[in-house]
């Protein structure tokens, strides 16, 4: 045991100091977002806070859909009080006047003993519990404080996960681009300053834990491609995947890419037995545990049947419409397809969302800035293309590994579109948001790092520095935008 601890300590000591600095930048940036964003203005935050509160107060998982005349279902007293002052103005302005603020605090004090209700996790009730279980730590630490203090404590705790996302991105780049330490820093800092990452991690939302878990999946997978797949590397991938799955179900979209990766690793390795055992160690416990959890917890939520005729996807039979919808959520519509989207999702939802759509996905930069961002991204893509062309022999040797990263991204995007199709059909409300693709955010870090390398040996670090400064600008202007949106 002591030998193991000593080895872990030695490995930690061997990690570059730059990695810790990048991770710290990610945490501090997300903590700034935690303070800047008004309470409950992170998507679905009232529901996520309700989930944490229920678990922290009762020690049980929340449930909904149960009619108990003695125990009405819905938000807790505190949650309702805050909700009445804040989320009904979800597209308006938060509390602006000191008198209104005092009234809110009075109401919260009056309701402070009413902390747990069935159904208070609202639309988050069906989520897996890991993120919420961890969030009970700050909640319990400041248990005696006011409701808004507890929400802030939870937000600051959540900001730590942004640091882990950056840290695993750094480690991933260290595997992917050996020998170019400055490029790891470029990619990791670009991720640390990504405004939507800071915004989401600075709020109470299970996405915050799904992002570092998925970044860890990419890192451990990259390690497996270099060190070989065995029980140890496989178990590490499985553990990261389990954390992701038990945080946010959408992470399930990574599984097709993982299966492809394991197939490649098993086929390429000789002997194949350790690799096959590694794949089994990665997938079997995770999938079995998650399936068991899903089956056992299904009773917690009794969902209402969808209202008929609320709108949604159009054309042909259900399967054709769904396929058409999934296709158009990522690619241009083909001539024989019905129009499923009023806009082009890759641009409106994913690109603009990535540059900065904030709040409940309802405010962002002035439209001209997205075109400026597109120009910058065109330059980044051109540089990255140049880097890959110049290193085409290396790229060819890594082709199977790179194919798995593409498969992970496409799998995730397709699963978001499939969920989006059902959601639109049942509610009439679009589901897709750029943040749902953030489990592969480490690949954005890789793109930035590779783009900097595309500038050549002499100018690479300089272009890397420029990209980091531009990422800082993006973050700063997103924060100023938020100040303007809510406080002017």
């Amino acid at each position: 045991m002591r030998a193991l601890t000593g080895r872990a300590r030695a490995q930690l000591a061997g990690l570059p100091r730059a990695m810790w600095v990048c991770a710290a930048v990610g945490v501090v940036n997300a903590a700034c977002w935690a303070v800047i964003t008004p309470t409950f203005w992170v998507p679905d935050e009232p529901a996520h806070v309700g989930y944490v509160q229920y678990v922290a107060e009762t020690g049980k998982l929340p449930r909904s859909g149960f009619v108990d005349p003695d125990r009405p279902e819905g938000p807790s007293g505190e949650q309702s009080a805050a909700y009445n002052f804040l989320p009904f103005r979800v597209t308006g302005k938060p509390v602006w006047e000191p008198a209104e603020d005092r009234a809110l605090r009075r109401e919260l004090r009056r309701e402070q003993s009413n902390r747990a209700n069935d159904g208070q996790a609202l639309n988050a009730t069906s989520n897996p519990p890991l993120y919420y279980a961890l969030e009970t730590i700050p909640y319990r630490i400041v248990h005696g404080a006011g409701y808004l203090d507890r929400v802030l404590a939870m937000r600051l705790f959540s900001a730590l996960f942004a640091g882990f996302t950056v840290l695993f991105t750094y480690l991933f780049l260290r595997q992917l681009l050996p020998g170019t330490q400055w490029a790891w820093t470029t990619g990791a800092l670009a991720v640390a300053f990504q405004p939507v990452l800071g915004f989401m991690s600075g709020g109470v939302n299970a996405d915050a834990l799904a992002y570092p878990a998925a970044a860890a999946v990419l890192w451990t997978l990259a390690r497996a491609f270099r060190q070989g797949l065995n029980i140890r590397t496989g178990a590490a991938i499985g553990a990261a995947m389990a954390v992701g799955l038990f945080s946010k179900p959408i992470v399930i979209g990574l599984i097709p890419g993982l299966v492809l990766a394991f197939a490649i690793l098993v086929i390429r390795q000789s002997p194949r037995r350790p690799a096959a055992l590694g794949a089994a160690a990665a997938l079997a416990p995770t999938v079995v545990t998650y399936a068991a959890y899903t089956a056992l917890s299904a009773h917690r939520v009794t969902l209402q049947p969808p209202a008929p005729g609320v709108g949604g996807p159009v054309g042909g039979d259900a399967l054709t419409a769904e396929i058409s919808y999934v296709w158009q959520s990522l690619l241009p519509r083909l001539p024989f397809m019905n129009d499923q989207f009023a806009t082009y999702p890759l641009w409106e939802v994913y690109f603009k969302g990535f540059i900065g759509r904030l709040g409940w996905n309802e405010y962002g930069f002035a439209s001209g800035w997205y075109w400026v961002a597109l120009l910058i991204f065109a330059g980044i893509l051109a540089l990255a293309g140049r880097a890959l062309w110049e290193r085409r022999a290396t790229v060819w040797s890594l082709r199977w590994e790179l194919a798995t990263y593409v498969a992970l991204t496409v799998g995730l995007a397709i699963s978001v579109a499939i969920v989006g199709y059902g959601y639109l059909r049942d509610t009439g409300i679009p589901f897709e948001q750029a943040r749902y693709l953030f489990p592969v955010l480490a690949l954005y870090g890789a793109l930035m790092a590779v783009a900097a390398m595309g500038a050549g040996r002499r100018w690479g670090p300089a272009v890397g520095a420029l990209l980091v400064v531009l990422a800082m600008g993006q973050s700063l202007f997103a924060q100023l935008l938020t100040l303007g949106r809510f406080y002017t």
Partner: protein
Amino acid sequence: MRRRVALAAGLGGLAILTVLVVVLAQQVEPRTGTNAIVSVSGVQVTVPASRTRCQRADVPAGTGRITVFASKRPGAGPLTIVLRSRAREIARARIPGFPAERAYMAALRPAVSDELRGARLCFENDGSRNIPLAGDRTEPIHVSSPDHDFPDDVRTDFFKAGSSARIGLAPDVARRFALGKSAALGPWTMWVVLAVVLVVAGVSVRLVFREAGA
């Protein structure tokens, strides 16, 4: 190598600083308050011809102008807006007509010197055509039935009497920043956050600089 990195970071920083200065120097209308609950309302509130419609209003101190949002209605108006507190007239504003669908801003005379809670805001339609104004609380997505009556108020935004550079709003932003949040925060928090953002930027540039020379 380090010189090139410094040059690139400096150029990037200069570009950001330039945009920042331009953005912060822009003249804006300083909002003092709003009764808006939604950004865009799905409900139209009509002030019938030759009639008056009143609603409750909280008007912040320093308010010198009022904005309503109206549909295009050529020939409608004028609309007189009267602000009363305890049955005493405090200020009034006048909008002569509604030739296009847009926001209409009018000067409240005299400007409101003290905050008014629970005041009464009346819209007097002095013309012979109805005036359709935007509501303040019902999102379009929730307006599914045209027959259903959605109780609503006229959306009113309040502004200071004159425009100001965006940077001039900073004290107001700092004051509002801490409201509706943890009691541990105060107006000072915004300045601390800005300082932290600058420190983090400095640390990051230093790290990039160091790594380039490694």
